[in-house]
C-alpha cells in the first residue's frame, strides 16, 4: 500500500497494526482484541480524513499510483472485450484505448485514457497524455459505435493532451476540436466519466456526453493546479491555493452545474477497494444507459447541446 502525504496518521496506525500482527504470529501474546480495536480505529480515522479532503488532497488521490485505470474497469465490469487499435491514419496511440465489450450482455463501446501501472508502462502509455492520433482513434471508434447503434462510454484520466512538436505538427488542436464538435451529433447514448485527472482540452476531447460523471476523488478543470500556480502566481508554490481557487472537485463541479453527477468512491479512494469501485461504476452506467435508452436520438442530441450551451455566467445590462 502506498500512502499519500496527508495519510501519514493512517500510515502510522498501519505500522502499529503490522507490529501487533507480528506479535500475534510469533505467539508471544494474545493481541486479537488490540488488533480488532486498531482496525476499527483505522477505519474510523480514514473515514473522517476522507470526508474532509481539500481540493489539493483530492488531486493527489486522483493521481494515486495504484488507482484503477480504464482497462481495469473494462475487465472488471465486462466480458468479451475486443480492443481496437489505431486511427487508420497515422498510428496507434497508447494513451487512449478502446473497443467493444459486453456489459451485462449488452455491447458497449468503451474508450478511455490509459495510464501505466509501473514505470515502464507509464512511459509506454505516455503518462496518459494522448497525441492527435489518440483523439482520432477515439473518434473513429465512436463513429463505428454509432454505425452499429451501440452506446459509448468514455473514461477520462489525463494530465493533459501531449504538448510536443509532433503533436502540434499532426494537429493536436484540430483533433480535439473535431472530437468535441462530432460528439454533439452522435446518435447513440454517450456517457463520460472522469475516473482520475480531467485536465483541460485533453479531457474534453473525449468528454462531451449525455451524462458526465466524476468519481468522488477526481478533478476536472481548465488547467492543473501546478500550472495555474506557475502562470498566475509566477511560482510553483501556490498549487494548494490554486486547487481551491479553481473549484475543481466533483462536489464543486456539480454545484456549478458543469457535470451531471458524482459517483462515490470507497473510503480511502478508488484504489483502496478497486473491485468495489468497479461495481459502483457499473451500476451507475447501467442506470444511466436505461434512462438514455428511453429517449429518442434527436431528443438526446438536443438535450446534450442545450446542456453545454447553458454553461457560463455573465451579466447583460
Amino acid at each position, binding site marked *: 500500500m502506498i500512502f499519500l502525504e496527508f495519510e501519514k496518521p493512517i500510515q502510522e496506525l498501519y505500522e502499529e497494526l503490522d507490529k501487533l500482527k507480528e506479535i500475534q504470529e510469533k505467539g508471544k501474546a494474545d493481541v486479537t482484541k488490540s488488533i480488532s480495536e486498531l482496525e476499527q480505529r483505522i477505519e474510523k480515522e480514514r473515514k473522517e480524513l476522507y470526508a474532509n479532503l481539500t481540493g489539493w488532497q483530492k488531486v493527489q488521490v486522483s493521481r494515486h499510483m495504484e488507482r484503477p485505470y480504464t482497462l481495469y474497469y473494462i475487465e472488471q465490469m465486462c466480458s468479451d472485450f475486443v480492443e481496437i487499435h489505431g486511427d487508420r491514419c497515422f498510428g496507434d496511440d497508447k494513451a487512449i484505448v478502446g473497443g467493444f465489450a459486453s456489459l451485462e450482455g449488452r455491447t458497449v463501446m468503451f474508450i478511455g485514457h490509459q495510464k501505466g501501472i509501473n514505470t515502464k508502462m507509464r512511459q509506454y502509455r505516455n503518462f496518459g497524455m494522448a497525441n492527435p492520433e489518440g483523439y482520432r482513434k477515439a473518434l473513429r471508434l465512436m463513429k463505428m459505435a454509432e454505425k452499429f447503434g451501440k452506446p459509448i462510454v468514455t473514461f477520462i484520466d489525463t494530465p493533459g493532451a501531449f504538448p510536443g512538436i509532433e503533436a502540434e505538427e499532426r494537429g493536436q488542436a484540430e483533433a480535439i476540436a473535431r472530437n468535441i464538435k462530432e460528439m454533439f451529433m452522435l446518435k447513440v447514448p454517450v456517457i463520460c466519466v472522469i475516473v482520475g485527472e480531467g485536465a483541460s482540452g485533453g479531457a474534453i476531447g473525449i468528454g462531451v456526453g449525455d451524462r458526465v460523471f466524476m468519481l468522488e476523488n477526481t478533478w476536472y478543470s481548465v488547467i492543473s493546479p501546478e500550472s495555474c500556480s506557475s502562470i498566475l502566481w509566477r511560482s510553483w508554490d501556490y498549487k494548494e491555493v490554486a486547487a481551491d481557487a479553481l473549484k475543481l472537485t466533483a462536489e464543486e463541479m456539480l454545484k*456549478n452545474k458543469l457535470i451531471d453527477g458524482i459517483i462515490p468512491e470507497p473510503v480511502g479512494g478508488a484504489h483502496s477497494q478497486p473491485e468495489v469501485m468497479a461495481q459502483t461504476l457499473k451500476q451507475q452506467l447501467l442506470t444511466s444507459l436505461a434512462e438514455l435508452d428511453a429517449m429518442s436520438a434527436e431528443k438526446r442530441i438536443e438535450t446534450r447541446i442545450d446542456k453545454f450551451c447553458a454553461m457560463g455566467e455573465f451579466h447583460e445590462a
Partner: protein
Amino acid sequence: MAWFKRSTAGVTTSTEEKLDVPDGLWFKCPSCKASLLSKDLKANKFVCTQCNYHCRIGSAEYFEIIFDEGQCEELDANLTSGDPLNFTDTKPYVDRLKATQAKTGLKDAIRTAKGLVEGEMLVVTCMDFDFIGGSMGSVMGEKIARAIDKAREMKCPVMVISKSGGARMMEAAFSLMQMAKTSAKLAQAGEEQIPYISLLTDPTTGGVTASFAMLGDFNLAEPNALIGFAGPRVIKETIKKDLPKGFQSAEFVLESGFVDLIVDRKELKSKLAQILRLLKN
C-alpha cells in the same frame, strides 16, 4: 513631441501594454525597427510598409478593415463577465476585470458586429488581445454562440477572428466548457449549411485553437501568426529541446495541413468577399 521617444515596448513591457498600434505620429516596427508614419501604417492596414509585419490590432480596426465603409452594427455589446468561482489570484478577478475595462474601454475580450463585405452580409466576432490576453471566458463563449445563432437566423456566413492565449483561468471549468458550447453551435450551423470562416491571427493558442478556431469551413491565417495548441514555452519545457525555427507559425501550420490559406491583411477584405461570392453563387 515624441520624435525621440520609444513608442513601443522593450522586453520589460507587460503583455497588456504590447499594443502595436501607435498613438503618436511615428511608429517603430517591432520587427524591422523601421520608423513609419502612423497614418501610413493605418492606410496599410497596420502592416509594416517595409517588412510586411502584421501589427496586432483589435476588433475596432478589423471591423474598419472588413466592412464596407467601415459601417457595421455591433451586437450583444452589453455582455460582461460574472465571477462564478469568486476567483482570486494575486488580485481578485472582479478587480482585474474592472481595471482592464477602464484601461481598454472594452467590456470583454470579444466584440461582434454585422455588416456588408462588398455587399455581402457577414456576422463577424473578433477578439481583443488587450483584454486579459484575449482569454476565453463565459462572455466570449456566449458571444460566439450568439453570433453563430444570428448567422443561422439571417442565413448568412459567420466569421470568428481569433487572437487569444486560450482559456481564461479565472473562470476555470466554466471557460473550459465554452470550448464545448461554441463547438455545439458550430455543429448546428454546419447542419444548416451556414458557412463558417475562422481567421487565426497572432497569437491563437490553447482552448481557442482546440475548439472553434480550428473548425472553420475555411481556416484562414495571417502571415507569421503564432498558431498552436500548447504554447512554445510549455512544449520547450516538456521536451527539453529547442524548437525548430518557424515552429507554430501560420506557414508551418499550413504546411502541416491545418490552415487552408494565409491571407495578407491588405487583401483580407477582397479575399473574404471572393469566398462569400463563391459560396453564394
